[in-house]
């Protein structure tokens, strides 16, 4: 979909610059003239929202880092210093903390969108896999960031997650000592986590660059899941059509963001994290941030340590294999009634696992968590391959234009009659 740029700068300076470094041409062909399918719905605005959230996290994070002290004795009080003394420190911190929540909310919506509309299928496999990598980096970044305030939940989280690696046979314990820089999570751990929390977002920026590049090679998928056949009929220009839609969606998103920051800023924070970390005691009820709860439930559902850790990582890694698990030639769930049904079952399973992850594990709940864990993997390993060959799909439209334009033509005709 991307070809040589047709961009011609208007000014002499622009032409001088462009013939030496065609930067404006790249921007123009990527975000102005770039053709987007004409039938995109609001599910396609989350890419822009995610880009915004990434920039917001970096800007607020760099500001926080100007006042934060990454040391076991001072980190906790430096957060209080940010909240009480630093000008607008409370605002920047709440933006960063709640920003992480909204970043993940947008990311999950974006991913479920991909699963619903079959956006991971050929020719977009690499685009999808880069997305899974970005998600993994995001989870790592958020985990590292959560350790920084050095509250008791920060400490417990750091301990539990780093100990996942101790499940590796033979070298596991040595790896954890290496990660901690000691025999337990402590000052050296906090220091290096800060260094890495600062680094990873910029690696995410790089990965997002590849993601967008891959996107602009294959073009976007769309709600009907048929490829663009005739750019004239099937697409519209990115600017103004997609730009305006993105700006509108982002504005609504910002209202939600502002509401979180100004009305319920502590809603996603664990009260236990207002206590300073204590290496000699663990809070009564250890839970991760909401966005990691489903994976935590899967970890706890499995009674064996090594298998639990393997299942935890497999539950994310399996996403990278979707293009080969779902072989149905029809992309969009709009034309796949059975797949659509199981998709919603899958969404309910994920939410259910999330809820279970937040609860104290009683025997009954653990049983349900096992059941849902089987369901989680079953969706990918059984339902997807099975439906690929057995499902009776609805007829797909011949082209994007055929999917949306006739309806409009009928409507105008009806209005004129």
């Amino acid at each position, binding site marked *: 979909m991307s070809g040589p740029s047709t961009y011609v700068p208007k000014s002499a300076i622009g032409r001088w610059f462009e013939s030496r470094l065609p930067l404006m041409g790249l921007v123009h062909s990527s975000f102005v003239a770039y053709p987007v399918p004409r039938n995109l719905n609001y599910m396609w605005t989350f890419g822009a929202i995610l880009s915004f959230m990434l920039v917001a996290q970096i800007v607020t994070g760099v500001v926080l880092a100007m006042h934060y002290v990454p040391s076991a004795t001072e980190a906790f009080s430096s957060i209080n210093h940010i909240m009480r003394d630093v000008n607008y420190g409370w605002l920047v911190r709440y933006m960063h903390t709640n920003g992480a929540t909204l970043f993940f909310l947008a990311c999950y919506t974006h991913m479920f969108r991909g699963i619903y509309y079959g956006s991971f299928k050929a020719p977009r496999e690499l685009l999808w896999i880069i997305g899974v990598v970005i998600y993994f980096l995001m989870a790592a970044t958020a985990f590292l960031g959560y350790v920084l305030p050095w509250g008791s939940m920060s400490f*417990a989280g750091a*301990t*539990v997650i*780093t*100990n*996942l690696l*101790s499940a590796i046979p033979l070298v596991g314990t040595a790896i954890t*000592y*290496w*990660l*901690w*820089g*000691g*025999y*337990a*999570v*402590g000052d*050296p751990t906090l220091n*290096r986590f800060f260094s890495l929390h600062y680094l990873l977002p910029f690696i995410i920026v790089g990965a997002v660059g590849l993601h967008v590049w891959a996107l602009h090679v294959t073009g976007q998928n769309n709600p009907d899941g048929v490829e663009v056949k005739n750019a004239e009929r099937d697409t519209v220009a990115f600017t103004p059509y997609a730009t305006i839609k993105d700006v509108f969606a982002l504005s609504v998103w910002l209202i939600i963001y502002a509401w979180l920051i100004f009305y319920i800023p502590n809603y996603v924070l664990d009260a236990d994290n207002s206590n300073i970390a204590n*290496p*000699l*005691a*663990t*809070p*009564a*009820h*250890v839970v991760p941030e909401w966005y990691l709860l489903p994976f935590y439930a899967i*970890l*706890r559902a*499995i*009674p*064996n*340590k*090594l298998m*639990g850790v393997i299942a935890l990582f497999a539950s994310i890694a399996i996403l990278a294999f979707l293009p080969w698990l779902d072989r149905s030639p029809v992309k969009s769930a709009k034309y796949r009634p059975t797949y659509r049904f199981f998709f919603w079952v899958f969404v309910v399973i994920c939410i259910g696992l999330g809820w279970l992850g937040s609860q104290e*594990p009683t025997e009954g709940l653990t049983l349900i968590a096992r059941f849902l864990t089987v369901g989680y993997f079953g969706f990918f390993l059984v339902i997807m391959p099975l439906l690929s060959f057995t499902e009776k799909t609805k007829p797909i439209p011949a082209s994007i234009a055929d999917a949306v334009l006739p309806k409009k033509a009928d409507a105008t005709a009806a209005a004129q009659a």
Partner: protein
Amino acid sequence: MASAATVEAPNRRDFLFLTAGAVGAVGVAAVVWPLVDQMNPDASTLALASTEVDIGAIPEGQIVTVKWRGGPVFIRHRTKKEIEDAENVPLGELRDPQTDQSRVKKREWLIVIGVCTHLGCVPLGQEGKYEGWLCPCHGSIYDTSGRIRQGPAPLNLAVPEYAFLTDTRVKIG
């Protein structure tokens, strides 16, 4: 390519190429290793390898938590019943079979590292089915010898190296 005539004896150029490559690989390893090893526990952390504790003031039935190498160590002054419970468990019932005798130096004193062998949380004393320890994180249950009895943890609470300096003083590490 495949014919025997084209296979030449290795010449000086091949030799130089291979040795230069080998030296280069050693050089890269010599730079990468410090970058990796710097993350291991440093000299100041290793220097904190032992700690001495006065246990004379710990009454029977109490557990005291002391800090050793940055983490908790439990010193438990066990009651008669707790000792008997621990000693009377048939080894066949245990996931990580160890006798109580092999885990203590004096019957009344149990000294174990207070780190759950599942994912490292600090278990709560005098709780759980066996009134040994209960881990709040994922529900592992330990007995009064610190042995794993239920839940996801694979191993018994570890016994650190320690020595009784006097009847009321122990050195851990």
